[in-house]
């Protein structure tokens, strides 16, 4: 790939699993052989355009620094990170709720009444904003995965986490007690690339929106 290969950052995991099949048959379809390998830079059906497969939390950094010109990432991740990038479209898919979840039978009022509330989350910024809106204080327990275990094992009174279908919550005997916000996939762009080379970036951005929103 040449130095001028245009890179688009795609998230690995749930959002990526939903995204990649939507691009099949489009000019941005990913090379299936490369996808089966462990390679993280995948050519697309358009010469000169390749996709980087990145962890969601790392993705905005690659785009903000201009390494990738475009990217797709959940708005929950964007809201947690103060990155200078453009957010060109709400792609609609990957919709989920950011919710306060506790063990079955524990109500929001019971949590409010706790003199020392402990919340486990990988979304500290959104959680702090909600606590501030609700005029509550809490100890935040930072976790990066498997937050559902925290209330079950006594690490926290409740968790703030993404909920899509609620299946994982139910499997752990947890229930949603409040919805803090909503998240969906967003098309982001590097400010510099988009503003200095719009003729190169905009057609690709439009192609992605067409394939992912209208397709």
């Amino acid at each position, binding site marked *: 790939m040449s130095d001028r290969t245009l890179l688009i950052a795609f998230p690995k995991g749930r959002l990526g699993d939903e995204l990649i099949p939507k691009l099949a048959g489009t000019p941005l379809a990913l090379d299936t052989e490369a996808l089966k390998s462990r390679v993280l830079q995948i050519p697309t059906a358009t010469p000169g355009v390749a996709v980087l497969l990145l962890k969601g939390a790392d993705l905005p950094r690659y785009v903000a*620094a201009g390494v990738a010109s475009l990217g797709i990432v959940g708005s929950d991740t964007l809201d947690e990170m103060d990155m200078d990038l*453009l*957010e060109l479209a*709400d792609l609609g898919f990957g919709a989920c709720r950011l919710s306060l979840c506790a063990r079955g039978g524990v109500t929001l009022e019971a949590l409010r009444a706790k003199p020392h509330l402990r919340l486990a989350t990988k979304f500290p910024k959104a959680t702090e904003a909600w606590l501030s809106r609700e005029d509550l204080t809490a100890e935040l327990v930072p976790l990066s995965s498997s937050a559902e275990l925290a209330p079950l094992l006594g690490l926290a009174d409740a968790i703030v986490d993404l909920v899509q279908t609620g299946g994982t919550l139910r499997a752990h005997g947890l229930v949603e007690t409040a919805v803090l916000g909503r998240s969906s996939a967003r098309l982001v762009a590097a400010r*510099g690339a988009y503003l200095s*080379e719009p003729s190169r970036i905009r057609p690709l951005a439009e192609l992605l929106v067409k394939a992912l929103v209208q397709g």
Partner: protein
Amino acid sequence: MPVRTPHFPDLLFGSAARLRHWEGALMALLASHGYRELHPSLVLREAIPGGALRFFDGDDLVALRWDFTMALAGVLARGFPLPPPRVSYAGAVFRRPLQPWEAVERFEVGCERIQPEGESSEEADLELAKLLMAIPGVLGLKSAILHMGHAALVRRPLEAEGIFGDLAKEVVTALSRRAPHRVKEVLDGHPSAARLVAHAEALLSELNGPGTLDALAASPYAELLHGERLHMERTLRSLLPILPPHLELRVDLAEVAGLDFYTGPTLRLWAPGAQQELAAGGRYDSLFPGLGRPWQAAGFCVRLSRLLDLAETRPDLFELPQ
């Protein structure tokens, strides 16, 4: 919490020579148009913003110069009964970086065009635009793009709807991200939400040449912004015939960077593929009245540190040195 290591780059031979050359060439250009250099002290003993680099000198909290325009405005408002019309500056400013890759010490060259209250500002704006158009040639950039915006395109509709403070900041942040869906989220439930979302969509619909101004017709505030549109049309009519080769002029209606500072037309210089703007400026008529002087002002700043980085990472964007 993000961990940020302060970035204090040293300039080695090639970069140091380039800095010296560019600084000299740009100051000569400004001097040839009547701009006289002022050099405010590197150490400030006055109200200090959070982004400045601060330290104690004995019992005194002092800061390093963090912005030339602010430092110069202080010098001019304190020491001059009438404004010197054209001022230039060159040197370093020191600022805590917002992004981890930004350097703390940044080299800049720039100019200020100051006028007494009531004088027409249109000629001064044109003078600055013409100067900025000459900058890519002086720097040896093979091609460049000049973005023309106008702070009032966002400011006036917000003021007309009575939106100020945090809500206004959130709308501006959403526009800065070029995200009309975020504008909608931020204004959810506000009586003017539909109008302002339609306005945001109009501002963000185009990013191109002079025809971009037609997008304003779709805005519910088209009439309110008629004067600004005429001003931008006149500026374009004056600038397009004298546009140097390899410089593209684009109208960017959604330009909102520095909106709390700029009050009128804004200009930003980019190179194709550059990650950050290389020069920026505009009209900021509220600066001197805030310091007790009824003067209007506009200016621009060439960000030499970004240009030095660009010359290292993308030498193909520059002409070979003579």
